C-alpha cells in the first residue's frame, strides 16, 4: 500500500497549463519533497492532493483509495500552510481542537453550553482537551495554549500550525513552505523538528519548498519540478550526483554547476573549452552537447604546466569563504566563469588576472543532450 499516488495529473488555469502529466508515488512512511523554482506549480499540486483545487484530468489516491470525488475533509489529510492560516479569533487551544471537534462532535453537540448539560458531550470534550494537550506537549507549546495567534512569534505560530495538523493523526501530512516565514537560525532548528516529527509519526509527508537545503536535509526522496513537470524523483544524493536533466543539475547545488558547450568527436571524444576529453557520448560526431561538472570536481593547475592538460582560462575572482575558496575562472566555451572549489591552502597565491588551467575529474563529468536529457558517458 502506498501513501499518496498521482496518475497523469493535468491542470490549467484558463489558457495557461500549470501542471502537465504529473505522476508520482509517495510511499506510506516516506518524506517526499516537491522542490522547484517559484511558480512551477508545487502549491497547486499539493492543493490538488488536499482536494482544495480540482484537476482537469488524472487521478489522485491516498492510502490506495481514489479520492478524486472526495471533499477535502473526507480525504483525511492535514496541511500546514505557508501563512499558517491560524484562526485569528480563537486561542491556540481552540485552534488545535478544531479538527477534532469537527470530526468527533455532531453539529448540535458543538453548540455552546451543550457540553455543560449532556454528559457524553462533556466526556468527548475532555478527550479532545487531552489530545490537544498531548499535541501541544509534543511541540512544547503548552504554555501558549490560552493565547491568540496575534500574540505569538513566527516560530510559535508555525508550531501551532504543526500541532493542529498532527493532532488528529491524518493519513498524510501536506506542508507548503512551512518554514519560509522563519529566520535562518529558526529554520534550521524547525527543519530538524519536522524531520523528527516524521520519524515519530511514521506517515506520509509531502513537503513543498523552493529551498534546496531544506529538501536535501529532510527528504527521503526529492521530486524536482519545473514548469509544471516532474523532471526527476530520486534520493537527495542521486539528485545531486546524478541529475537526470540539465535543469535539475543547474537548479541543485551551490555554487551553480559549471556548464560548457561541447561537441561530440569521433573516437569517443568530447571537445569543450578548447580541449578534448576522452568521453564516449554515443552521439554522432559533430553533435552538440553540454559538458557539466561541479565546483568540487575539478582543481586548478598553473597555466605553465608542461603537459598542458585542462581548460585554459584566466582568474576573475577568488572568493574566500574560510573553509572553502571558490575560484572563478573565465574559460572558452562558457558564458559564465567556471567555478572551482579549492582548499584555503590550494588557493594560496592565486590572484585575479592570473592564467590557469581548470582540470575536471573525468569520472565526475556529466554530459547532457541539447534537449537537456542526461547522456551516460562511458570514459
Amino acid at each position, binding site marked *: 500500500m502506498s501513501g499518496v499516488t498521482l496518475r497523469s495529473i493535468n491542470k490549467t488555469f484558463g489558457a495557461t497549463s500549470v501542471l502537465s502529466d504529473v505522476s508520482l508515488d509517495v510511499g506510506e512512511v516516506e518524506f517526499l519533497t516537491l522542490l522547484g523554482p517559484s511558480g512551477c506549480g508545487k502549491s497547486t499540486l499539493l492543493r490538488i492532493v488536499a*482536494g482544495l483545487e*480540482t*484537476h482537469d*484530468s488524472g487521478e489522485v489516491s491516498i492510502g490506495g483509495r481514489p479520492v*478524486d*470525488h*472526495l*471533499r*477535502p475533509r473526507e480525504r483525511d489529510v492535514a496541511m500546514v500552510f505557508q501563512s499558517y492560516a491560524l484562526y485569528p479569533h480563537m486561542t491556540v487551544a481552540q485552534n488545535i481542537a478544531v479538527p477534532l471537534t469537527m470530526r468527533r462532535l455532531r453539529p448540535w453537540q458543538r453548540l455552546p453550553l451543550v457540553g455543560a448539560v449532556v454528559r457524553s458531550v462533556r466526556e468527548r470534550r475532555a478527550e479532545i482537551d487531552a489530545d490537544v494537550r498531548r499535541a501541544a506537549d509534543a511541540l512544547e507549546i503548552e504554555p501558549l495554549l490560552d493565547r491568540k495567534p496575534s500574540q505569538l512569534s513566527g516560530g510559535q505560530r508555525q508550531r501551532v500550525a504543526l500541532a493542529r495538523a498532527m493532532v488528529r493523526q491524518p493519513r498524510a501530512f501536506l506542508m507548503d513552505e512551512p518554514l519560509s516565514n522563519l529566520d535562518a537560525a529558526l529554520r534550521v532548528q524547525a527543519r530538524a523538528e519536522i524531520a523528527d516529527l516524521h520519524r515519530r509519526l511514521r506517515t506520509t509527508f509531502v513537503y513543498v519548498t523552493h529551498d534546496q537545503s531544506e529538501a536535501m536535509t529532510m527528504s527521503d526522496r526529492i521530486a524536482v519540478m519545473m514548469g509544471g513537470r516532474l523532471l526527476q524523483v530520486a534520493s537527495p544524493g542521486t539528485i545531486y550526483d546524478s541529475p537526470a536533466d540539465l535543469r535539475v543539475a543547474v537548479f541543485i547545488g551551490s555554487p551553480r554547476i559549471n556548464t560548457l558547450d561541447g561537441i561530440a568527436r569521433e573516437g569517443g571524444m568530447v571537445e569543450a573549452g578548447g580541449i578534448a576529453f576522452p568521453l564516449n557520448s554515443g552521439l554522432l560526431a559533430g553533435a552538440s552537447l553540454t559538458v557539466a561538472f561541479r565546483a568540487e570536481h575539478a582543481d586548478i593547475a598553473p597555466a605553465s604546466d608542461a603537459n598542458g592538460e585542462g581548460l585554459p582560462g584566466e582568474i576573475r575572482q577568488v572568493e574566500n569563504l574560510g573553509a572553502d575558496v571558490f575560484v572563478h575562472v573565465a574559460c572558452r566555451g562558457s558564458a559564465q566563469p567556471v567555478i572551482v572549489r579549492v582548499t584555503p591552502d590550494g588557493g594560496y597565491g592565486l590572484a585575479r588576472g592570473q592564467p590557469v588551467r581548470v582540470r575536471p575529474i573525468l569520472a565526475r563529468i556529466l554530459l547532457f543532450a541539447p534537449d537537456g536529457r542526461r547522456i551516460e558517458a562511458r570514459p
Partner: protein
Amino acid sequence: MTLAAIAGTPGAENIARKTPARTEALAAYGLVAPATILLLGILVLPTVATVVLSFTDWQFGAASLNWVGADNYGALLGDEVFRKSLTNTLLYVSMVVPASVVLGLVVALLIEAGTGLRAFYRAAFFLPVTATLIAMATVWEIMLHPSIGFINLVFDAAGLGKHNWLKDPALALPTLAAIGVWQMLGLNMILFLAGLKSIPRDLHEAASIDGADGWWSRFTTVTWPMLGPSTLFVLIISSIRSFQVFDTVAVLTEGGPNKATEVLLYTMYQEGFGFFRAGYGAAITVVFLTFVLLLTLLKVRLAERRVHYS
C-alpha cells in the same frame, strides 16, 4: 454550469472527478439564495414595477388601471411644479456635493496632519451624521428663527442684519443646502480618513526622499492620486444622498416659499401619497432614478479615465 460541466466531460469517472467543484458551487448557491431572492423580490422587481406603473394612470385604491403610454411623462414636461422641482434638486445637489466633498477632504487632511485632539475632532464632525436629521432640522428651525434664532442673533451682533432664512425664496434653498452640508460632511470626512489611512506610510517617505518634501507637493504627488478611488466613492455616495433630500424640506419648508424648495422626492411624495396618483408619482420616481444613475455613471466614467491612466 453543472450541465455544461457534464456535457463537456465524457465518461462517468470524469463526472465523479468534478464533484468537489460542484459541491463548492452547490454550497455557494445555498449561501447566496436568500440574498438573491430578497434582492430580486425587494429591490429589482419593485423597481421594475415602478417603471411599469409610470406608464399607467393607476391611483391608490383604484380597481382598474389603464395603460397610458408616456402620458405621465408628457404631463411632467408641462408641469410647472415638476420643472421647478427638478431644477431645485439639481441646484441643491450642485451646492451640497462640492461643498461637502471639499470640506470633508479638508477636514480629513487637517485631522491627519497633526496628532492633537484627533478623536475629538473626528467625533465632532461626525456627530451630525448620527443625529436624527428630522430632530436636528427642528433645532435648525429654531436657530434660524427670524427674531429669536441663534443665527440671526449672531448675524445681528456682527452687523449683518436679520434674515428670514426659510421664508425668503432666495435664501430658502441655500439654507437647506447648508444644513445638508452640515449633515453630510462628517460621513465624507470619515470615508476620506479611511482612504488616507490606507496610503502606505513608505509612500510618503519615498516621496520626501524623491524631493517632494513640501506639504503641497506631497499632497499632489502621493495623497491626492492615492485618494482617487476614495474620492470617487465619496462623490457617488454624496450625490446619491443629496439627490434624496426630503426630510428637511418636509418639516422645514414643505416645498415653499412659493415652490422655492420643491424637490423631486417631495413632489413624488405629494403626488403619490398626498394626491394618491401612483402612476404620476412613479413617473417622477423614474425621472429621479434616471438622474441618479446618469450622474453616477458619468462620474465613474470620468474617474475611470483619471484613476487608471494617471
